[in-house]
Protein backbone atom coordinates (compact mmCIF):
# COMPACT_ATOMS: atom_id res chain seq x y z
CA UNK A 1 0.00 0.00 0.00
CA UNK A 2 1.09 3.50 -0.69
CA UNK A 3 1.05 5.79 2.26
CA UNK A 4 1.54 9.53 2.21
CA UNK A 5 3.63 10.83 5.06
CA UNK A 6 3.94 14.57 5.58
CA UNK A 7 7.53 15.63 5.49
CA UNK A 8 9.08 18.86 4.35
CA UNK A 9 12.33 16.90 4.30
CA UNK A 10 10.93 14.13 2.11
CA UNK A 11 13.72 14.25 -0.43
CA UNK A 12 16.45 14.18 2.20
CA UNK A 13 14.66 11.49 4.13
CA UNK A 14 14.19 9.37 1.03
CA UNK A 15 17.87 9.71 0.24
CA UNK A 16 18.81 8.80 3.79
CA UNK A 17 16.57 5.76 3.71
CA UNK A 18 18.23 4.62 0.50
CA UNK A 19 21.55 5.14 2.23
CA UNK A 20 20.65 2.41 4.66
CA UNK A 21 20.82 -0.01 1.76
CA UNK A 22 23.45 1.70 -0.39
CA UNK A 23 25.79 3.97 1.56
CA UNK A 24 27.10 6.96 -0.37
CA UNK A 25 30.46 5.44 -1.21
CA UNK A 26 28.72 2.67 -3.18
CA UNK A 27 26.56 4.93 -5.31
CA UNK A 28 27.34 6.07 -8.82
CA UNK A 29 26.49 9.41 -10.38
CA UNK A 30 23.52 8.29 -12.42
CA UNK A 31 22.39 5.55 -10.12
CA UNK A 32 19.56 5.15 -7.68
CA UNK A 33 19.53 7.87 -5.05
CA UNK A 34 16.19 7.65 -3.31
CA UNK A 35 14.10 4.92 -1.80
CA UNK A 36 10.68 6.54 -2.13
CA UNK A 37 9.20 9.26 -4.25
CA UNK A 38 7.55 12.37 -2.96
CA UNK A 39 4.91 14.79 -4.05
CA UNK A 40 3.80 18.29 -3.37
CA UNK A 41 0.11 18.44 -2.58
CA UNK A 42 -2.35 20.99 -3.86
CA UNK A 43 -1.65 23.18 -0.85
CA UNK A 44 2.05 23.15 -1.44
CA UNK A 45 3.05 20.73 1.30
CA UNK A 46 5.53 17.96 0.69
CA UNK A 47 4.69 14.29 1.31
CA UNK A 48 6.86 11.24 1.19
CA UNK A 49 5.12 8.47 -0.76
CA UNK A 50 5.92 5.42 1.26
CA UNK A 51 5.41 1.87 0.09
CA UNK A 52 4.42 0.04 3.25
CA UNK A 53 5.63 -3.29 1.91
CA UNK A 54 9.02 -2.12 0.76
CA UNK A 55 11.95 -4.08 2.12
CA UNK A 56 15.55 -3.02 2.02
CA UNK A 57 18.67 -4.93 2.77
CA UNK A 58 20.39 -2.96 5.50
CA UNK A 59 24.00 -2.57 4.49
CA UNK A 60 26.81 -3.37 6.87
CA UNK A 61 27.96 0.25 6.63
CA UNK A 62 24.50 1.75 7.01
CA UNK A 63 24.38 4.97 8.97
CA UNK A 64 21.30 6.62 10.37
CA UNK A 65 22.77 10.02 11.20
CA UNK A 66 20.71 11.92 8.65
CA UNK A 67 17.51 10.18 9.68
CA UNK A 68 18.22 11.05 13.29
CA UNK A 69 18.76 14.67 12.29
CA UNK A 70 15.42 14.74 10.51
CA UNK A 71 13.58 13.22 13.45
CA UNK A 72 15.25 15.36 16.10
CA UNK A 73 13.02 18.44 15.69
CA UNK A 74 9.97 16.20 16.12
CA UNK A 75 11.51 14.80 19.27
CA UNK A 76 12.46 18.22 20.56
CA UNK A 77 8.95 19.52 20.01
CA UNK A 78 7.50 16.57 21.86
CA UNK A 79 5.74 15.03 18.89
CA UNK A 80 7.94 11.97 19.08
CA UNK A 81 9.08 10.16 22.23
CA UNK A 82 12.55 11.08 23.48
CA UNK A 83 13.91 7.61 22.84
CA UNK A 84 12.87 7.46 19.19
CA UNK A 85 16.33 7.83 17.69
CA UNK A 86 17.89 5.41 20.14
CA UNK A 87 15.21 2.87 19.38
CA UNK A 88 15.68 3.32 15.67
CA UNK A 89 19.45 3.02 15.92
CA UNK A 90 19.00 -0.22 17.84
CA UNK A 91 16.73 -1.57 15.12
CA UNK A 92 19.17 -0.64 12.35
CA UNK A 93 21.97 -2.26 14.29
CA UNK A 94 19.93 -5.38 14.67
CA UNK A 95 19.13 -5.51 10.97
CA UNK A 96 22.58 -4.95 9.50
CA UNK A 97 23.01 -7.42 6.67
CA UNK A 98 19.39 -8.38 6.95
CA UNK A 99 16.11 -7.30 5.40
CA UNK A 100 14.04 -4.56 6.95
CA UNK A 101 10.48 -3.57 6.11
CA UNK A 102 10.96 0.17 6.15
CA UNK A 103 7.46 0.96 7.31
CA UNK A 104 8.04 -1.10 10.44
CA UNK A 105 10.82 1.25 11.42
CA UNK A 106 8.69 4.36 11.13
CA UNK A 107 7.42 5.92 14.35
CA UNK A 108 3.68 5.55 14.90
CA UNK A 109 3.26 9.27 14.34
CA UNK A 110 4.10 8.78 10.69
CA UNK A 111 2.06 5.67 10.18
CA UNK A 112 -1.46 5.41 8.87
CA UNK A 113 -4.05 7.37 10.76
CA UNK A 114 -6.65 5.18 12.35
CA UNK A 115 -9.25 6.55 14.72
CA UNK A 116 -9.01 3.55 17.01
CA UNK A 117 -5.50 2.18 16.75
CA UNK A 118 -3.41 5.18 15.76
CA UNK A 119 -5.37 8.40 16.23
CA UNK A 120 -2.24 10.54 16.13
CA UNK A 121 -0.96 8.94 12.94
CA UNK A 122 -0.37 11.43 10.17
CA UNK A 123 -0.06 8.99 7.30
CA UNK A 124 -2.80 9.05 4.70
CA UNK A 125 -3.86 6.72 1.93
CA UNK A 126 -4.39 7.95 -1.60
CA UNK A 127 -8.13 8.04 -1.03
CA UNK A 128 -7.67 9.99 2.18
CA UNK A 129 -5.48 12.49 0.37
CA UNK A 130 -8.14 13.04 -2.25
CA UNK A 131 -10.89 13.26 0.35
CA UNK A 132 -8.88 15.88 2.20
CA UNK A 133 -8.53 17.92 -0.96
CA UNK A 134 -4.80 17.43 -1.02
CA UNK A 135 -4.70 15.64 -4.34
CA UNK A 136 -6.82 15.97 -7.42
CA UNK A 137 -9.20 13.18 -8.20
CA UNK A 138 -8.29 11.74 -11.59
CA UNK A 139 -11.78 10.37 -12.05
CA UNK A 140 -13.09 13.90 -12.34
CA UNK A 141 -10.51 14.96 -14.88
CA UNK A 142 -11.50 15.26 -18.52
Amino acid at each position, binding site marked *: *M*KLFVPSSAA*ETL*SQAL*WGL*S*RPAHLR*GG*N*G*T*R*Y*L*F*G*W*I*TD*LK*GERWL*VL*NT*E*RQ*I*NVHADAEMGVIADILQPWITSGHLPAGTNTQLARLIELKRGDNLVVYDAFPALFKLYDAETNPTGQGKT*YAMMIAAGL*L*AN*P*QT*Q*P
Partner: protein
Amino acid sequence: MLLGCGSSGGGASFVGPLDAYASGLIDCHSLYKRLLTSHTGQLFQVRRSSDDDELAIMPLANGFFDVATLLSFCAGTNGFVVSVAGQLNGYDLIQPVADDQRRIVNAGALESYPDGTPCMKVTVAGSQGYYTDLFGAITSASASVFAVGSVTAPASYSAVGSLVTDTGWDYYGNACGLASQYTNTRITLLQDANAAVDLTFGSKYSWCASINGTVARIRQGASTNTQPYVNGISSVQRILAAGCASVGYYYSGAGCGWQSQAAYSSDKSADQLTIMGILEAEA
Protein backbone atom coordinates in the same frame (compact mmCIF):
# COMPACT_ATOMS: atom_id res chain seq x y z
CA MET B 1 17.75 -13.10 -31.82
CA LEU B 2 17.37 -11.61 -28.38
CA LEU B 3 19.11 -14.43 -26.68
CA GLY B 4 21.86 -14.75 -29.23
CA CYS B 5 25.43 -14.41 -28.18
CA GLY B 6 27.68 -11.68 -29.40
CA SER B 7 30.24 -9.19 -28.32
CA SER B 8 29.18 -6.03 -26.59
CA GLY B 9 29.30 -2.81 -28.50
CA GLY B 10 28.57 -2.25 -32.12
CA GLY B 11 29.80 -4.23 -35.05
CA ALA B 12 31.20 -2.43 -38.04
CA SER B 13 28.18 -3.41 -40.14
CA PHE B 14 25.65 -2.06 -37.70
CA VAL B 15 23.50 0.77 -39.01
CA GLY B 16 21.43 2.68 -36.51
CA PRO B 17 17.74 2.75 -37.40
CA LEU B 18 17.57 6.40 -36.47
CA ASP B 19 20.72 7.63 -38.09
CA ALA B 20 18.71 9.54 -40.66
CA TYR B 21 16.83 11.43 -37.95
CA ALA B 22 19.66 12.28 -35.64
CA SER B 23 19.85 15.90 -36.67
CA GLY B 24 16.27 16.51 -35.57
CA LEU B 25 16.45 14.91 -32.18
CA ILE B 26 17.29 16.18 -28.75
CA ASP B 27 18.12 12.64 -27.94
CA CYS B 28 16.80 9.14 -28.33
CA HIS B 29 16.48 6.27 -25.94
CA SER B 30 15.77 2.62 -26.09
CA LEU B 31 16.27 -0.14 -23.62
CA TYR B 32 15.93 -2.62 -26.31
CA LYS B 33 18.16 -1.51 -29.08
CA ARG B 34 20.98 0.69 -30.14
CA LEU B 35 19.40 3.37 -32.29
CA LEU B 36 22.37 5.22 -33.69
CA THR B 37 25.57 4.00 -35.25
CA SER B 38 27.42 6.67 -33.33
CA HIS B 39 26.29 5.33 -29.96
CA THR B 40 28.60 2.69 -28.60
CA GLY B 41 27.89 3.00 -24.90
CA GLN B 42 25.40 1.37 -22.60
CA LEU B 43 21.71 1.08 -23.35
CA PHE B 44 20.54 1.15 -19.79
CA GLN B 45 21.51 0.60 -16.19
CA VAL B 46 19.88 -2.04 -14.07
CA ARG B 47 19.64 -2.48 -10.30
CA ARG B 48 19.18 -5.91 -8.82
CA SER B 49 17.13 -6.27 -5.69
CA SER B 50 19.29 -8.81 -3.92
CA ASP B 51 21.95 -6.29 -2.95
CA ASP B 52 20.91 -3.15 -4.88
CA ASP B 53 24.07 -3.27 -6.94
CA GLU B 54 23.83 -1.74 -10.40
CA LEU B 55 25.23 -2.66 -13.80
CA ALA B 56 25.37 -1.03 -17.23
CA ILE B 57 23.79 -3.17 -19.95
CA MET B 58 25.48 -2.86 -23.32
CA PRO B 59 24.22 -3.61 -26.81
CA LEU B 60 25.37 -6.68 -28.66
CA ALA B 61 26.93 -6.47 -32.08
CA ASN B 62 23.48 -6.73 -33.64
CA GLY B 63 22.32 -3.71 -31.66
CA PHE B 64 19.99 -5.49 -29.27
CA PHE B 65 20.59 -5.41 -25.58
CA ASP B 66 22.68 -8.05 -23.90
CA VAL B 67 20.04 -10.22 -22.35
CA ALA B 68 22.48 -12.87 -21.20
CA THR B 69 24.47 -10.40 -19.11
CA LEU B 70 21.30 -8.92 -17.72
CA LEU B 71 19.94 -12.28 -16.67
CA SER B 72 23.27 -13.36 -15.28
CA PHE B 73 23.52 -10.24 -13.17
CA CYS B 74 19.96 -10.65 -11.95
CA ALA B 75 20.05 -14.41 -11.53
CA GLY B 76 17.39 -15.50 -9.09
CA THR B 77 16.40 -11.98 -8.21
CA ASN B 78 14.60 -8.94 -9.59
CA GLY B 79 16.10 -6.32 -11.84
CA PHE B 80 14.91 -2.72 -12.12
CA VAL B 81 15.76 -0.13 -14.73
CA VAL B 82 17.57 2.82 -13.18
CA SER B 83 18.38 4.81 -16.28
CA VAL B 84 18.19 4.62 -20.03
CA ALA B 85 21.06 6.12 -21.93
CA GLY B 86 20.54 9.09 -24.17
CA GLN B 87 22.13 7.70 -27.28
CA LEU B 88 22.66 10.96 -29.05
CA ASN B 89 23.57 13.62 -26.53
CA GLY B 90 23.75 11.77 -23.26
CA TYR B 91 20.49 13.05 -21.82
CA ASP B 92 19.89 9.92 -19.86
CA LEU B 93 16.40 9.14 -18.69
CA ILE B 94 16.81 8.49 -15.02
CA GLN B 95 14.52 7.13 -12.38
CA PRO B 96 16.51 7.73 -9.20
CA VAL B 97 13.70 6.57 -6.90
CA ALA B 98 14.10 2.86 -6.22
CA ASP B 99 10.45 2.33 -5.42
CA ASP B 100 9.39 3.77 -8.75
CA GLN B 101 11.75 1.92 -11.02
CA ARG B 102 10.28 -0.43 -13.56
CA ARG B 103 11.00 -4.09 -13.22
CA ILE B 104 12.68 -5.73 -16.15
CA VAL B 105 13.68 -9.01 -14.53
CA ASN B 106 11.32 -10.91 -12.27
CA ALA B 107 12.87 -13.67 -10.17
CA GLY B 108 15.56 -14.18 -12.77
CA ALA B 109 13.25 -14.14 -15.80
CA LEU B 110 12.83 -11.34 -18.28
CA GLU B 111 9.54 -9.50 -17.95
CA SER B 112 7.41 -9.75 -21.03
CA TYR B 113 4.15 -8.83 -22.57
CA PRO B 114 1.61 -11.59 -22.96
CA ASP B 115 3.00 -12.23 -26.43
CA GLY B 116 6.47 -12.80 -25.06
CA THR B 117 7.98 -9.51 -26.11
CA PRO B 118 10.28 -8.20 -23.39
CA CYS B 119 9.08 -5.20 -21.48
CA MET B 120 9.31 -3.41 -18.20
CA LYS B 121 6.61 -3.60 -15.60
CA VAL B 122 5.47 -1.32 -12.87
CA THR B 123 5.44 -3.19 -9.62
CA VAL B 124 4.17 -0.65 -7.15
CA ALA B 125 1.11 -1.80 -5.27
CA GLY B 126 -2.02 -0.63 -6.99
CA SER B 127 -0.26 -0.12 -10.28
CA GLN B 128 0.21 -3.66 -11.45
CA GLY B 129 -0.78 -4.00 -15.00
CA TYR B 130 1.09 -0.99 -16.14
CA TYR B 131 3.66 -1.85 -18.65
CA THR B 132 5.95 0.76 -19.84
CA ASP B 133 6.87 1.01 -23.42
CA LEU B 134 10.49 1.78 -23.53
CA PHE B 135 10.72 -1.37 -25.44
CA GLY B 136 8.39 -3.89 -26.82
CA ALA B 137 7.88 -1.57 -29.69
CA ILE B 138 10.76 -2.47 -31.87
CA THR B 139 10.23 -6.11 -32.47
CA SER B 140 8.42 -5.65 -35.72
CA ALA B 141 9.51 -3.53 -38.60
CA SER B 142 6.40 -1.43 -38.57
CA ALA B 143 6.63 -0.52 -34.95
CA SER B 144 9.76 1.50 -34.65
CA VAL B 145 7.90 4.69 -34.12
CA PHE B 146 8.79 6.90 -31.28
CA ALA B 147 9.02 10.43 -30.18
CA VAL B 148 11.26 12.46 -27.99
CA GLY B 149 10.20 15.67 -26.43
CA SER B 150 10.38 17.80 -23.37
CA VAL B 151 7.88 19.17 -20.98
CA THR B 152 8.32 22.01 -18.59
CA ALA B 153 7.70 20.94 -15.07
CA PRO B 154 4.66 22.40 -13.37
CA ALA B 155 5.58 25.14 -11.01
CA SER B 156 4.19 23.29 -8.04
CA TYR B 157 6.63 20.49 -8.59
CA SER B 158 9.86 21.91 -7.43
CA ALA B 159 11.90 18.76 -7.56
CA VAL B 160 12.50 16.55 -10.51
CA GLY B 161 12.14 13.54 -8.29
CA SER B 162 8.56 14.32 -7.58
CA LEU B 163 7.77 14.32 -11.24
CA VAL B 164 8.92 10.86 -11.83
CA THR B 165 7.16 8.99 -9.10
CA ASP B 166 4.54 6.48 -9.93
CA THR B 167 2.16 8.43 -7.84
CA GLY B 168 2.59 11.17 -10.32
CA TRP B 169 1.53 8.86 -13.07
CA ASP B 170 -1.31 7.54 -11.01
CA TYR B 171 -2.73 10.93 -10.32
CA TYR B 172 -2.09 12.70 -13.47
CA GLY B 173 -1.68 10.02 -16.05
CA ASN B 174 1.83 10.94 -16.86
CA ALA B 175 3.92 13.87 -17.79
CA CYS B 176 1.43 14.83 -20.41
CA GLY B 177 -1.34 14.65 -17.93
CA LEU B 178 0.70 16.89 -15.75
CA ALA B 179 1.14 19.22 -18.62
CA SER B 180 -2.56 19.36 -19.27
CA GLN B 181 -3.45 19.85 -15.67
CA TYR B 182 -1.29 22.83 -15.05
CA THR B 183 -0.95 26.01 -16.89
CA ASN B 184 2.31 27.20 -18.29
CA THR B 185 3.30 23.77 -19.36
CA ARG B 186 3.97 22.49 -22.77
CA ILE B 187 5.05 19.45 -24.64
CA THR B 188 7.02 19.77 -27.76
CA LEU B 189 7.27 16.88 -30.09
CA LEU B 190 10.51 17.37 -31.82
CA GLN B 191 10.77 14.48 -34.14
CA ASP B 192 9.02 11.38 -35.13
CA ALA B 193 10.40 8.64 -37.20
CA ASN B 194 7.83 8.11 -39.86
CA ALA B 195 5.92 11.34 -40.34
CA ALA B 196 3.08 10.00 -38.26
CA VAL B 197 3.14 8.86 -34.69
CA ASP B 198 0.73 6.15 -33.73
CA LEU B 199 -0.38 6.52 -30.19
CA THR B 200 -2.51 3.68 -29.06
CA PHE B 201 -4.27 3.95 -25.78
CA GLY B 202 -5.35 1.06 -23.69
CA SER B 203 -6.45 3.67 -21.27
CA LYS B 204 -9.31 5.20 -19.52
CA TYR B 205 -8.09 8.71 -19.76
CA SER B 206 -5.56 10.23 -21.97
CA TRP B 207 -4.89 13.79 -21.23
CA CYS B 208 -3.57 15.98 -23.81
CA ALA B 209 -1.25 18.81 -24.10
CA SER B 210 -0.63 20.50 -27.33
CA ILE B 211 2.23 19.24 -29.28
CA ASN B 212 3.98 21.47 -31.66
CA GLY B 213 5.35 19.18 -34.20
CA THR B 214 4.42 16.64 -36.70
CA VAL B 215 1.15 15.01 -37.47
CA ALA B 216 0.16 12.50 -34.92
CA ARG B 217 -2.43 9.81 -35.21
CA ILE B 218 -4.38 8.99 -32.12
CA ARG B 219 -5.98 5.66 -31.79
CA GLN B 220 -7.99 4.08 -29.08
CA GLY B 221 -6.63 0.87 -27.68
CA ALA B 222 -8.33 -2.45 -27.73
CA SER B 223 -8.99 -2.55 -24.02
CA THR B 224 -12.53 -2.42 -22.85
CA ASN B 225 -13.92 0.43 -20.88
CA THR B 226 -11.78 2.91 -22.63
CA GLN B 227 -12.75 6.49 -22.74
CA PRO B 228 -9.93 8.33 -24.27
CA TYR B 229 -9.95 12.04 -24.53
CA VAL B 230 -7.88 13.91 -26.95
CA ASN B 231 -7.99 17.54 -26.13
CA GLY B 232 -11.34 16.88 -24.59
CA ILE B 233 -12.65 15.02 -27.60
CA SER B 234 -13.53 11.41 -27.12
CA SER B 235 -11.89 9.65 -29.95
CA VAL B 236 -11.73 6.20 -31.38
CA GLN B 237 -9.35 7.13 -34.07
CA ARG B 238 -8.43 10.61 -34.88
CA ILE B 239 -5.96 12.18 -37.14
CA LEU B 240 -4.71 15.34 -35.65
CA ALA B 241 -2.94 18.11 -37.33
CA ALA B 242 0.25 19.58 -36.09
CA GLY B 243 -0.07 21.35 -32.81
CA CYS B 244 -2.66 19.05 -31.38
CA ALA B 245 -1.91 15.59 -30.21
CA SER B 246 -1.77 13.52 -27.13
CA VAL B 247 0.84 11.30 -25.71
CA GLY B 248 -0.64 10.76 -22.31
CA TYR B 249 -2.55 8.00 -20.71
CA TYR B 250 -4.11 7.06 -17.49
CA TYR B 251 -5.23 3.56 -16.88
CA SER B 252 -7.30 2.71 -13.90
CA GLY B 253 -8.68 -0.65 -14.76
CA ALA B 254 -7.30 -4.13 -14.64
CA GLY B 255 -5.20 -5.46 -17.41
CA CYS B 256 -2.41 -4.01 -19.38
CA GLY B 257 -2.36 -0.55 -20.70
CA TRP B 258 0.92 -1.08 -22.35
CA GLN B 259 0.43 0.77 -25.54
CA SER B 260 1.37 4.22 -24.66
CA GLN B 261 4.39 6.21 -23.95
CA ALA B 262 6.81 6.10 -21.12
CA ALA B 263 8.31 9.07 -19.46
CA TYR B 264 11.15 9.54 -17.16
CA SER B 265 12.94 12.50 -15.88
CA SER B 266 16.37 13.52 -16.82
CA ASP B 267 17.96 15.32 -13.95
CA LYS B 268 20.22 17.26 -16.23
CA SER B 269 17.85 20.14 -15.81
CA ALA B 270 15.85 21.05 -12.77
CA ASP B 271 12.74 22.08 -14.59
CA GLN B 272 12.65 20.00 -17.71
CA LEU B 273 11.25 16.55 -17.97
CA THR B 274 12.39 14.65 -20.95
CA ILE B 275 9.68 12.50 -22.33
CA MET B 276 9.68 9.92 -24.97
CA GLY B 277 7.32 7.49 -26.50
CA ILE B 278 8.08 4.27 -28.14
CA LEU B 279 4.88 3.24 -29.69
CA GLU B 280 3.56 -0.10 -30.59
CA ALA B 281 2.40 -1.11 -33.97
CA GLU B 282 -1.28 -1.67 -34.29
CA ALA B 283 -2.19 -5.08 -33.03
